[in-house]
């Protein structure tokens, strides 16, 4: 089966400054593909290259086996796009905007828009300029799904959505995937991608760090434990503990990555005077910290 997205050595420079470099990946039909990275890593650049809004410096990029430059209109007719920085026609109402976009996509009326607007409880007849951030984001989502596209390019889709609407959004993504359609989900939030994606690529400073199934990533997940001591403990005091790695030291504060049972670490900590203890599931930043502690080989 043809990959829905195939990038080979995709590189984009803006003048001398980096967008992305040497990006290669394939996304299969029916996948929810997470594209994870901190802000400025090149996520938006990648998505805008797919839509031919910007042009690659080098490399190849095909969607549905079509060249995104030469067959751009055909590519875009099968794609729905939610920009990371959504700008809408302020004077229109959502109904007018959706009707306009539906017309430009060759659809009658609102397409799927009416059904989706009901589902997201989006008011259709108030001017967009009077809508809250969350409601604008709903307009952006509805227009992206309007024509039942084969591929959804969603750049930070849950920004500004309240938790209840996020649940609706999650359900919608699962349905889309179940229908064999494909989602390319760009995000800087690890937990969001973990919850929704089948596979994930991690991008940092314009380059792919790793591409993995979400289960593999989850298996690598760890708990971040931050301990504040009365006095900085000697270096090497926590070496060799099973499932425990030191990530970072800042004076009396030591940050650990913990995989598996907490007991060995707790016992080791108890030998010192601990003033404070904080632990939570690792987020993306912790992940990168762990990644770079171990070199860029990808071994966490």
């Amino acid at each position, binding site marked *: 089966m043809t990959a829905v997205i195939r990038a080979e050595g995709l590189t984009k420079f*803006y003048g001398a400054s980096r967008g992305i470099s040497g990006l290669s990946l394939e996304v299969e039909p029916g996948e929810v593909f997470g594209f994870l990275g901190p802000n400025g890593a090149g996520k*938006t650049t990648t998505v*805008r290259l797919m*839509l*031919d*809004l*910007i*042009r690659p410096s080098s490399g190849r990029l095909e969607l549905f086996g079509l060249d995104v430059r030469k067959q*751009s*209109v*055909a590519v*875009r*007719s099968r*794609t729905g*796009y939610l*920009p990371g*920085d*959504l*700008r*809408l*026609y302020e*004077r*229109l109402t959502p109904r*007018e905007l959706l*009707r*306009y*976009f539906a*017309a*430009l*996509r*060759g659809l009658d009326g609102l397409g799927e828009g009416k059904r989706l607007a009901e589902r997201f409880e989006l008011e259709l007849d108030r001017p967009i300029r009077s809508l809250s951030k969350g409601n604008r984001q709903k307009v952006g989502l509805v*227009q992206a799904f309007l024509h039942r596209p084969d591929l959804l390019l969603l750049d930070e889709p849950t920004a500004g959505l309240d938790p209840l609407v996020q649940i609706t959004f999650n359900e919608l993504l699962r349905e889309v995937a179940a229908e064999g359609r494909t989602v390319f989900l760009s995000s800087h939030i690890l937990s969001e991608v973990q919850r929704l994606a089948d596979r994930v690529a991690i991008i940092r400073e314009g380059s792919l760090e790793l591409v993995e199934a979400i289960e593999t990533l989850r298996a690598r997940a760890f708990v971040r434990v931050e301990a504040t001591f009365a006095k900085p403990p000697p270096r090497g005091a926590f070496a060799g503990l099973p499932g425990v790695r030191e990530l970072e030291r800042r004076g009396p504060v030591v940050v650990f990555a913990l995989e598996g049972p907490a007991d060995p670490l707790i016992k080791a900590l108890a030998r010192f005077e601990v003033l404070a203890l904080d632990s939570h599931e690792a987020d993306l930043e912790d992940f990168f910290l762990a990644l770079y502690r171990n070199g860029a080989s990808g071994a966490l």
Partner: protein
Amino acid sequence: MLSSVFAKTLRERLRAFRWWCLGTLGFVALYGSVYPSISGNKSLNDLIKNYPEALKGFIGFGGNLDIASGAGYLGSEVFSFWGPTVLLAVAISAGAAALAGEEEHGTLDLLLSLPLSRTRCLLEKLAALVCETLALAFVLWILLVVASYSAGMGVNAGNLGAAVLVLLLFALDFGVLALAIGAATGRRALAIGLSATLAVAADVVNALAPLASWLDGVKLASPFYYYTHGDPLRNGVNATDAIILVAIAVAFAAVAPLLFRRRDLAAP
């Protein structure tokens, strides 16, 4: 109503367009009501005869300075200054808003994520620009016809139409130029500033040409020359002038998609 980029663009422009029409009505009414007190006043012509040559170049539409006649009056007052200003303002603002305005506002990102080629988008915006400027020229023509008859200026509808048509073509040159600059750069202020500056330069070169012989060749590059030198208020449309003005607009319109297609669009 919102079935195409063309229709959407026209609808967006309609709000401001109503004010342009109202302003045009006001000015034409003012010029019409002042004319009777100037008509046949030969001493005014004598006064103008003593104007510096440089000034005469700016107000003598088609080289004619008989301000006491209807055609001379309209030429100096409406077609030398106020008419071009209004039509240029509308055409240039529409041209700059078309692509650069939408790109700066950030909506172009979403619009061109739809299955719409950049050339198609540009051409629909161009068509809207032409329609809007044409509509205002039409309104101007009707109002001038009414003013000419009611104030007894003695310029017939055909010659007024000829002058307005050449004025329209002249304004479109700079409107399309603004659209092309916007297409090439995505910068609205640059599109407005550069087009307006060139329009003023075109007027100045043409007006000062009689004073400096070296400008004689340069004025042939000025659209203002083709707009005025045939004196359309008296002679009707000069076909060569009209064709040259159309050719200039077509040249800008032909280059614009080439520049627009090849570049990166700015992220919102």
